[in-house]
């Protein structure tokens, strides 16, 4: 049985992917916390990606496939830690893949890397520039991760590398930013703005990752779900009440709250509530023969189930 190593296995999405693969692969993983109640046969190493010990894990496990999703996406830790884990951790992981005979690699990026801008065309393809850091410098490390992985893809063609950029992933297990936002009862929005947003259910996203491993794809792919609705419709369908606030009040208020640690996202995140990032998932649907199972309504309702 071939072996898959998942970084960030104890996270919501990591667990779903591990469970998805357990029948066909030997599954192991690394994370900074243990996965209590993990299925039998799944081995979890509690280790930091930036530590020397991580290479030991790869050296002893010798996985055939690696799924890299062990990123810090929240802003509770300081910038240096985020950078170390996300960028330097990825850099080291890529080196380990080369040195320890890994045959295929899947890196989980996100459609956020394109950035939310008023002049964004609809349904951008994978060749669109990754401009997120222009308006949202706090996530430039994630943009850098994407760039590292893409460069790796071309540099080491014998390692089948897939970079996945899914749209907003929501569901019960995944603690995505947008998921937490939609889970609120009263949801602040920017008055006068209602961008189109694409969503994918966490189960469908797990399926997409599993397909990428099984089919040994190579390339950069947007991953889209069952469709898109304006933000306010998404809030309503997921059971919340939108509270539109004028931007001139909202932006400074959130900036202050963020500085004092009372609000989890930096003010640059507001642009993602103002302007659309819509991507075309056609390339992945063709290459992977992928279709989401969950309807848009089910997907939106899944934040509460």
């Amino acid at each position, binding site marked *: 049985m071939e072996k898959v190593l998942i970084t960030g296995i104890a996270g919501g999405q990591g667990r779903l992917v591990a469970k998805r693969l357990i029948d066909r692969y030997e599954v192991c993983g690394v994370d900074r916390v243990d996965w209590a109640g993990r299925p039998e046969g799944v081995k979890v190493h509690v280790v930091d990606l930036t530590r020397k010990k991580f290479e030991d894990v790869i050296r002893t496990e010798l996985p055939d496939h690696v799924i890299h999703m062990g990123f810090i996406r929240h802003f509770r830790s300081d910038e240096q830690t985020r950078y170390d884990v996300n960028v330097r951790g990825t850099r080291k992981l890529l080196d380990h893949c080369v040195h320890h005979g890994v045959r295929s690699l899947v890196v989980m990026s996100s459609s956020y890397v394109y950035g939310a801008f008023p*002049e964004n065309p609809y349904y951008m393809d994978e060749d669109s520039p990754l401009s997120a850091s222009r308006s949202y410098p706090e996530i430039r490390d994630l943009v850098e991760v994407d760039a590292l992985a893409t460069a790796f893809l071309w540099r080491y063609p014998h390692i089948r590398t897939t970079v996945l950029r899914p749209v907003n992933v929501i569901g019960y297990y995944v603690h995505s930013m947008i998921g937490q936002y939609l889970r609120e009862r009263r949801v602040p929005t920017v008055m006068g703005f209602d961008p189109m947003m694409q969503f994918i259910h966490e189960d469908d996203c797990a399926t997409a990752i599993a397909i990428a491993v099984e089919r040994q794809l190579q390339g950069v792919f947007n991953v889209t779900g069952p469709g898109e609705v304006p933000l306010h419709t998404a809030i309503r369908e997921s059971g919340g009440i939108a509270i539109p606030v004028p931007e001139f009040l909202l932006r400074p208020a959130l900036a202050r709250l963020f500085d004092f640690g009372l609000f989890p996202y930096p003010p640059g995140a507001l642009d993602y509530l103002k302007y659309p990032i819509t991507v075309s998932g056609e390339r992945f649907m063709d290459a992977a023969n992928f279709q989401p199972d969950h309807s848009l*309504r089910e997907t939106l309702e899944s934040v509460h189930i």
Partner: protein
Amino acid sequence: MADEAPGMLDALMDFVVRYLPDDVRDLESELEDRLHKVPNQVNEFGFDPYGLSLEAARRMFLPTALMYRFYFRVEHRDIDRVPEGRVMLIANHAGQLPFDGAMLTMAMLLDADPPRICRSMGEYFLPRLPWLGTAMARGGAMVGTPENCVHMLDNEECVLAFPEGARGMNKPYTERYRLQRMGLGFMRLALETSTPIVPVAIVGSDDQQPGIANFEALGRRLGLPALPITLGFPLLGPLGMLPLPVKYHIYFGEPMVFAGDSADDDVTIQQNVDAVKETIEAMLARGVHERKGIFT
């Protein structure tokens, strides 16, 4: 939809409509009827992939349709020249505020057979303005990036573009009915997607808001492409933005089909653009000559 501010406006609109004369209610049901005749990709939540909503469009288009019928009293000629399937409407642009685009959109929706929803290619700064960007999307418009235009044409939509842009719209009165320089982008996209171009001449918009000057530099500072001074604006405040009740005449030309490489040099593309521009100029000159006055 009481959970958002535009919802309140919608409710207000509904209230107003209920107490309006029969003419208006007839127009509203006509709008609804025509909107639903247009093939669309609207999903279970009422939105197409580009944010168009038939429901929101019906409400938003009612004031526009009223202007079309009763204020500008729009007349048009040869609207049946617009072919089915993908097509680009290329028109002259004038009048400080884009009522010309709105009237052309109404003509295609109310009087074309079958009705079409024009996909307008808007300025890049428009989505920055609260409500306006949302309103644009709900009515079928979007920022005029080449990618968006190609998407629309691949979907066999009717794309509306004013290649003169702000140069045309905010020109002073002394330049009326003189076409300004047209961008080349639309021609490259037409070649790339094999799209027929229907040249459109709009007579009336040049007289609706005579421009005296354009403080472009100051406008840029404020994030706008222009800051025109007209007879009424800014002297009369927002009221000064109201156009004169001129009469609109819209002339549709024969579809023009161009062949060639979309990546050709500017000189070659320019020749095609000039052909379109000259056609519009000729129709415009004839239209201005034929009318008896700006209000008739």
